[in-house]
């Protein structure tokens, strides 16, 4: 039996009057890739942002229900959001490296959390870049601008940046949507490797990608969780008619 890293209970999300997520219940297993699929506007990105409380940044957002990580509700008043986000890293749809050097990008999170020692910074940056399969490509240009890298490299840099603070969970919000096929292949290869150490939740509206890389898959529609299970089962024998229609490309 797999261990459940994230347990979501009756999660509701509103933006103002707009009811975006409706009573989501889902248990996300540890050290596996869970894909969240669904048509545009179904709330899948908003769902992902509930897991590291990024929706806090939106004034009109309101959340009810619980998100338990290792059994603790991250919406408890006592939770330090800064520490939570350190444990739950995030990579965005469009590569968004800071307009700084490659090194400073990866070191940013470390510095924020108080790592000052130069030797330690260097070690951790190298480690993160290696883990993100990027080291060999950037080791000679660590102090060049991160904006000079290709899109695919930038996205892996963003992953390295997230890895540097040693999170337990990595949230990926359509990380390949702005990448070409070759960069996407490299990224998927990386995700495959990372799941040995991290719990990964990836939002995608690329069905083939979900099929290729995920162990578990969730299907969201209009803010409701329609179906959740092992990817293989969802793809071969979906229980819900709507899931089947979506996967066979009848809408999306």
């Amino acid at each position, binding site marked *: 039996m797999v261990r459940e890293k994230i347990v979501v209970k009756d999660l509701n999300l509103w933006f103002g009057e707009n009811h975006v997520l409706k009573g989501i219940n889902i248990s996300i297993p540890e050290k596996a890739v869970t894909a969240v699929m669904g048509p545009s506007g179904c709330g899948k990105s908003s769902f992902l942002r509930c897991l590291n409380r990024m929706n806090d*940044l939106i004034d009109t957002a309101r959340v009810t229900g619980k998100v338990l990580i290792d059994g603790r509700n991250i919406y408890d008043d006592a939770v330090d959001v800064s520490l939570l*986000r350190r444990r739950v890293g995030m990579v965005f749809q469009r590569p968004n490296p800071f307009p700084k050097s490659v090194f400073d990008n990866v070191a940013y999170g470390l510095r*924020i959390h108080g790592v000052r020692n130069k030797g330690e910074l260097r070690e951790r940056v190298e480690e993160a870049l290696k883990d993100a399969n990027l080291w060999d490509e950037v080791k000679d240009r660590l102090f060049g601008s991160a904006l000079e890298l290709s899109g695919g490299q930038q996205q892996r840099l963003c992953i390295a940046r997230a890895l540097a603070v040693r999170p337990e969970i990595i949230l990926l919000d359509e990380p390949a949507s702005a990448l070409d096929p070759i960069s996407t292949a490299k990224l998927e290869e990386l995700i495959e490797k990372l799941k040995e150490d991290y719990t990964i939740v990836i939002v995608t509206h690329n069905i083939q990608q979900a099929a290729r890389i995920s162990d578990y898959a969730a299907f969201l529609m209009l803010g409701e969780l329609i179906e959740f299970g092992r990817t293989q089962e969802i793809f071969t024998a979906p229980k819900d008619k709507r899931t089947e229609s979506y996967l066979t490309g009848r809408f999306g």
Partner: protein
Amino acid sequence: MRRFKQFVGFVVLKTSVVVGVLFLFSLIVVIALNGARVLSPGFLLEFPREGMTEGGIFPAIVGTFLLSLGAVGFALPLGVLGAIYLREYAGGGRLVRIIRTGINTLSGVPSVVFGLFGLAVFVKLFGFGVSVLSGSLTLGVLILPVIIRATEEAIEGVPREFREASYALGATKWQTVKGVVLPAALPGILTGAILGVGRAAGETAPILFTAATFYTRHLPGSPFDEVMALPYHIYALMTEGTEPEHQVPIAYGTALVLLLLVLAVNFIAIVIRYRARRARKW
């Protein structure tokens, strides 16, 4: 008929542009031709002599530098910090909107009013006297709206993605502002500051009662000394003294120097903005 109307419209529009440009161009030409006659290394590096009818404008150049740098030294930190607060922390409430409108209105207040304000507050109330300090502070207040607005715009122009990436790593708001937002906004802030320098350098009225003097034999030795300044020097040459036939050419020379100075400052601002735009890829 339609073609004719279009032709008339075209001519009107084109004439407007030509006339406008002509005025700008002739301003530069008139100042340059009249000013160039007295321009020489000595004019830039000597003190005035013989009751302003001979010699140069060196102390006025120095004075203008001191005043405008002083103004920016005062207004830049205050304006940047104020803008950060307004943009990042104050939220969007009514009070903030009123403050912002107030700041924008402030930039429309006639500069002589700033001069009177400086006289009342810095010269008299604070007891700084007619001095470099009073003049710098008065000019600083004058350019404060410029710097606040430039900083607010620069901060607003920083993509949301940068902030999100920072927050997602567990950064606090202040860490995000300090580590990501301000560095990315820096070129815009610098541009604003430099434009502020140019604005401060060219103003006469604010320093009229607060800093400027017609003639000093020495450069200011302390912030509490009076100082000569280019715009006021022009004003004084044209309104005081008894030998206009010698003073007017010097006034034009001073105007040319001031014009070149302000153009140079603006040019620097343009270069910074251009390079920053080219370097960024967001």
